[in-house]
């Protein structure tokens, strides 16, 4: 397999993991998870400079924060399949006594998670803190954070966005999952946010778009460009144009699967569309 084929195989397997995790416990958030599958696979496999061994401090490596913690199924799958914990543990998603809580937490010592998230709007602030600590420690590595687009409705984000530009936090790449959907409907109908790109630019950020946010090549190219734009006095924002529910035809382009699990029948159809590649857990 070529490198791209290997990544594509991993993406398909992660999609299966997401669907099977959510189906088993009849809860969780498949839509946003599927929409960010290619991004997280590309980020962890191709973009970030990571160490094999997880340490909370994350010194001398790139670190990642998931601000929209509800897409935990994709994070857990990618973490497991990049070696942070055994893939069999995906079986415990949302079960009693599991490290794989409904929303990610440090509370139970799950490798790969450095902050609890779920209550929205806090990730950029945390990432700025971690990026600032890296500068104090003379650690030239980067801090990545992924946020939902609906999440930007939380005011804390704009405090953070203002701070990062004003204080030249330029070792930070914030990616926004621009799928245009949130629980109650499209972002335009729930609370229109206007032009997100102009807003970030007006706050002093360097913004770039990844128009095909579900295309591995486009993501890798876009994120490599984003990396090149760090260290220039501005924080970097990547607008990742994705399709919620990507890879499962009946889940795509709708908010309906934001926080809903598929039935047995729906799971079967969804898995048929994503045949096993690297082995189910």
């Amino acid at each position: 397999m070529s490198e791209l084929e290997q990544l594509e195989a991993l993406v398909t397997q992660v999609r299966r993991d997401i669907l099977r995790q959510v189906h088993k416990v009849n809860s969780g958030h498949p839509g946003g998870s599927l929409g960010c599958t290619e991004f997280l696979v590309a980020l962890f496999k191709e973009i970030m400079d990571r160490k094999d061994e997880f340490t909370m401090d994350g010194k001398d490596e790139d670190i990642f924060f998931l601000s929209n913690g509800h897409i935990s199924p994709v994070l857990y799958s990618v973490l497991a399949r990049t070696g942070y914990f055994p893939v069999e543990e995906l079986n415990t998603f949302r079960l009693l006594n599991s490290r794989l809580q409904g929303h990610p937490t440090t509370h139970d010592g799950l490798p790969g998670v450095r902050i609890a998230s779920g209550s929205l709007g806090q990730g950029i602030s945390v990432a700025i803190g971690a990026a600032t600590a890296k500068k104090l420690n003379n650690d030239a590595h980067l801090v990545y954070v992924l946020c939902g687009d609906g999440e930007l409705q939380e005011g804390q984000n704009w405090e953070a966005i203002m701070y990062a530009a004003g204080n030249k936090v330029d070792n930070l790449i914030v990616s926004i999952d621009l799928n245009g959907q949130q629980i109650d409907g499209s972002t335009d109908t729930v609370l229109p946010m206007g032009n997100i790109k102009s807003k970030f630019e007006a706050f002093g950020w360097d913004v770039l778009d990844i128009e095909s946010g579900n295309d591995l090549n486009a993501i890798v190219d876009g994120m490599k460009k984003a990396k090149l734009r760090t260290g220039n006095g501005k924080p970097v924002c990547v607008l990742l144009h994705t399709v919620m529910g990507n890879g499962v035809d009946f889940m795509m382009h709708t908010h309906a699967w934001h926080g809903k699990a598929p039935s047995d029948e729906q799971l079967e159809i969804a898995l048929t569309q994503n045949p096993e590649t690297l082995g189910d857990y």
Partner: protein
Amino acid sequence: MKKHTNTGNKDTRSGFGAGLTELGKTNENVVALCADLTGSLKMDEFKENHPERFFQAGIAEANMIGMAAGMTIGGKIPFTGTFANFSTGRVYDQIRQSVAYSEKNVKICASHAGITLGEDGATHQILEDIGLMKMLPGMTVINTCDYNQTKAATIAIAKHHGPVYLRFGRPKVANFTPENQNFEIGKAVVLQEGTDVTIIATGHLVWEALLASEILMEHGISAEVINIHTIKPLDKDAILKSVAKTQCVVTAEEHNYLGGLGESVARVLAENAPTPQEFIATQDTFGESGTPAQLMDKYGLNADAIQKAALKVIART
């Protein structure tokens, strides 16, 4: 009887500033964040000495708390500084998720707590913060009584790994605890031994409790005065040991009786040794504008109110 002497009125927030200055010199991992109240929090000296370790967050407390949580991930020990109201109620969810639940080593340092904030009035006078903070699992809650103790506590919490809420105040009050004292988190300090009633006080009410004990002594009543600087974890043994002797207790705090020290003490007593208790605290009310002294008088947070409560609780035994 052990006498306590006021060596001169000083504000507890200056004790915090002095402690932070010392930490700046001795611990290079200590960083400070402030939300546009550097002078009020007495953080200027740290800022001047270590500009690279001082972070001005602006009037954006939620982001400040999140940043502090993130900085711990690089091994830093962040001290955040703003008024108690903006340190707690305004940022409760940020503290809950990013600090407490995430078990981050953040020190939330809160000045102008309680009604002695004074003239700014009820919008700024939080009387609910101890309750908010003590309800968070894993959070240590400290309310210091004077300048010396606040300085010692500031230095001590840097050595403690875990989230801490450090509460202090605005006005100049009696400074009577020893200079360079050894501050033990969770360890009550018996300031005065007595046999007839136990007075358990925290923060600015500790000095008032000592004054109350002098009034009581004139009535031939021997009061034991305990300074509970750490409300969580609470020094259960010290409380039980004292009430075993006195059989009654007055708690005193500059906080709502709901959620404060008094309720924590009542729980310990109810579980172990049910004991008559009187509560010196605000009575589920907001504050108002006035001088700190006027407000302490109006809301019954002073030596006279404590001694009256002591007489009342003794009569109940």
